[in-house]
C-alpha cells in the first residue's frame, strides 16, 4: 500500500520548502559566491575597492610548499581517521550484534563520544595524553622523549587522529550496527550450522552485505576528515597546527590565513581548491569503488 500526499495547488509545496531554500541561499550560496569573488581579487580586510587579479591568488597558493604540506597532512588525517573509525566501529558493531549480555549498555556507551564537541574532546585529550602528566608520563619516564606531541610533528598528528577517531567511531558504529541487524538471521544461522566460526561468518557473509553501508561511511568520513568542523576544532584546541606545521590540516590553514593573516583572498582561493578536492574524491569513490558495491 502506498501513501502519497497530493498537493492541490502548486504554491503550497514551495511555501513549505521556502524556509529551507532561504537558509541554503543565505548560509551556503551567498558565502560561496563571495568566496568565488574574493578568490580572484585582492580583498582589503576593511572592504573597499578590490582589484581583479585573475589566477594570481591560486598561483601563490600552489607555489607555497607549506600549502602542499597541509594537503599531505589533510590526506593522512582523513585516511587514517576514516580507516580507524570504520574498522573499530565495525568490530564494535559485530560484538554488540552478538547480543551478549550488556550489549544495550555498550551500544549507549559507544555512541556517547559523538555527542561531545571537538574542542572539548581536544582539551580532554591534551591532558590525558600530555607527555608530562598524562597516561604517557610513566612511559616517558622510562624512555625519555618517547612521546612528545609538542616536539614531534608525527606524534602530534597521531594525537589529533586518535581524538578524531575516538569521537567519530560511535557514529560509524551506529550505522554499521543498523546494517548488521538488517542482515537476515537465517543466513548467519545457516552458516553457523555449516560449521563457520564467528570470524568466517563476519568476513564471508556480514561484511559483503554491509558493503553499501561501508561505502556510505567511507564517503562521509573522508569528507568529514577533510572539511568537518571537528577537524578544525580538534586541531585548534590541541596543537594549533604545530609543531612546525606538523598538524596543519587544510581547514586550519584556511582559517589561520584568513583571520590571522587577514588574507581573505588567499584563504578563498584555498577554499575553492579544497571544494574541488572533495568533489574529486567523491567522484573517484563513486566511479571506482561504488562499482564493487552490490545493492540488494
Amino acid at each position, binding site marked *: 500500500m502506498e501513501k502519497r500526499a497530493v498537493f492541490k495547488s502548486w504554491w503550497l509545496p514551495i511555501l513549505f520548502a521556502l524556509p529551507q531554500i532561504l537558509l541554503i541561499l543565505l548560509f551556503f550560496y551567498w558565502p560561496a559566491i563571495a568566496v568565488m569573488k574574493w578568490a580572484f581579487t*585582492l*580583498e*582589503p*580586510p*576593511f*572592504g*573597499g575597492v578590490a*582589484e581583479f*587579479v585573475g589566477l594570481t591568488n591560486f598561483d*601563490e597558493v600552489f607555489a607555497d610548499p607549506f600549502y602542499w604540506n597541509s594537503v599531505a597532512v589533510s590526506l593522512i588525517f582523513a585516511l587514517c581517521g576514516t580507516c580507524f573509525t570504520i574498522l573499530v566501529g565495525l568490530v564494535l558493531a559485530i560484538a554488540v550484534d552478538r547480543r551478549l549480555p550488556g550489549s544495550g549498555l555498550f551500544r549507549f556507551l559507544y555512541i556517547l563520544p559523538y555527542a561531545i564537541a571537538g574542542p572539548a574532546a581536544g582539551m580532554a585529550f591534551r591532558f590525558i595524553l*600530555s*607527555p*608530562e*602528566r598524562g597516561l604517557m608520563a610513566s612511559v616517558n619516564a622510562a624512555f625519555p622523549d618517547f612521546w612528545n*606531541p*609538542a*616536539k614531534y610533528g608525527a606524534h602530534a598528528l597521531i594525537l589529533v587522529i586518535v581524538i578524531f577517531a575516538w569521537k567519530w567511531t560511535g557514529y560509524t558504529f551506529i550505522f554499521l550496527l543498523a546494517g548488521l541487524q538488517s542482515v537476515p538471521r537465517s543466513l548467519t544461522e545457516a552458516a553457523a550450522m555449516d560449521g563457520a566460526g564467528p570470524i568466517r561468518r563476519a568476513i564471508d557473509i556480514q561484511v559483503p552485505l554491509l558493503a553499501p553501508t561501508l561505502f556510505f561511511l567511507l564517503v562521509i568520513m573522508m569528507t568529514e576528515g577533510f572539511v568537518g568542523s571537528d577537524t578544525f576544532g580538534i586541531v585548534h584546541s590541541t*596543537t*594549533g597546527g*604545530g*609543531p*612546525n*606545521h606538523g598538524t596543519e590540516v587544510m581547514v586550519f590553514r584556511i582559517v589561520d590565513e584568513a*583571520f*590571522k*593573516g*587577514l*588574507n581573505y*583572498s*588567499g584563504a578563498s582561493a584555498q577554499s575553492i581548491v579544497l571544494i574541488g578536492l572533495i568533489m574529486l574524491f567523491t567522484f573517484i569513490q563513486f566511479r571506482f569503488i561504488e562499482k564493487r558495491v552490490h545493492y540488494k
Partner: protein
Amino acid sequence: MRLTVLQSALASILAATAFGAGPAHAEKTKFEFWYGLSGDLGERVQDACKKFNDMQADYEIVCTSQNSYDTTLQNTIAAYRAKKQPAITQIYDAGTLDMMLSGAFVPAKKLMADNGYTIDWTNYFSGIANYYATAGGELNSFPFNSSTAMFYYNVDAFQKAGIDFKPETWEEVEEAARKLKAAGFDCPLGFNFDTWQMMEQFSAIHNQPIATQGNGYQGLDAELVFNKTKFVDHVKFFKKMVDEKLFVVKTKQLGMDIVPAFTSQTCQMIQTSIADHGTIGKTLPEGVKWEVAMLPVWKGTQRQNSLVGGASLWVMAGRPEAEYKGASAFLNFLATPEMAQWWSTVTGYIPVTKTGFEAMKANGFYDKAPYKGRELAIASLTYTPTSQNTRGIRLGGFTQVRKEVSTALEAIFMQNADVQAELDQAADRSNAVLRRFEKTYAGQKLN
C-alpha cells in the same frame, strides 16, 4: 570563553534595564567599546568603564571583551564590514598598519579637536607616540595599555649560586646561567618563541633593523632583513645555550609558559613584558626575592630605547555624531593623571604621558615594594631618542610575520633545524606577506 561574553552581555543588559527603571534620568547616549584584554586585566577595563559611567550623566559606555587581541581585530573588521562597528576598539601593536590604511577610523587629534578637547600631544613619551603616529608625528590612535619587555631574575637563586652581579649583558647572563646550573638549578633561563622580546625588542635595543625603509615607516615596499642582522647571532647563541641545557624552552604546548615557570621558581631568569610585573609579584610565594632589569645587551653595544608593546584605542569611522562626543569624553577621562595612575597601579602597564609618570614618581609610587622596578620600563623606553630602528614597526600583516618567525624559532629549537636557513625562509615568506599587502593597498600612501 563564550561564557564571559555572555556574562558581560547579560551584565550590560541588566545594567541597562536597571538603569532604565530609574526615575527622572535623561536619555543617555550609549556607545560601545571593544577590548582584547581578558582575565584580571579585562576586569580592570570593566572597572575603568564603571568609573566613567558613575562619574557623568550624559553618556554610557558599554564595554565588551573580545577575549584576545587578534579576535578583537577580526571582530572589528567583521563588524565594520557589516556597519555594526563599535565606537572605540582596542587594537594591538601588530595591527597598527592594518588600521592606518583601513580608512575606517577617526584620527585621534581630529576627534579631540572636533569635540572641544585640547590635548598636549607632546606630553606622550615619543617612543610610545611614534608607534601609533603618522610619520609626521600626528597621533592616529590613543596609546592606552603600553608596555615593554624586561628581564626578570630570581635573587634568591642568584645568591645560592654565588652570583654577585646584576646581568646587564648577555655575556653575564651566560655566566649566571652556568653558575645556576652548577648550583643545581635545572632551568637557569626559560624562554618561548614569542618574537616580541626575542626579535623585536632585541633588534631595537641593539639598533638593528627588522625591515628596510625604516622598519616600514617610509613605504609599503619595505623588505624584512632580520635574517641578516645581529639577531641571527643572537639566535645562534640561544641555540648553543639550549644545547648545553642552560636555556630551556617553556611553552604552553609543553605544559608551562615562561611566566608560570618563573613564578613557580622552575626557571630563574625570563624576559617578558612589564605588564606581567603585577602578576609575578602577586604569584611568587612571599619572601622570595626577585628583581626586574632592562633587557640585557651584548657587550660593547650602545643601548637604544626599547619598543612599546601593548595596544592603543582607535575610534571607528561611521558612528553617529553623538557617540563621538561620548567617546572623546571617555578618552579624555582615561588621559587624566588620576586615571592614568590608577590604571598603571592596578595593572603593570606604564603611564603613557610624561605628566602621568612625573606625578607617580612624585607620589613615591615607585619606591614601594610591589611597584619597585616598574620605572625601569620607562627608562628602557626613553633610554635614547628614537632612531629609524627603534621608532616602531610599521609592516602590514605583521601578525603573520610574527607567526613565520616563531615557527622558524620552533623548528630551530625543537627540531634542530639550521638557524640561518630557517630565518632565511621565514624572511622570504614574510616578504611575500608584505608584497601581497602592498598590492592590496596599491596606490595608497603611508601618511
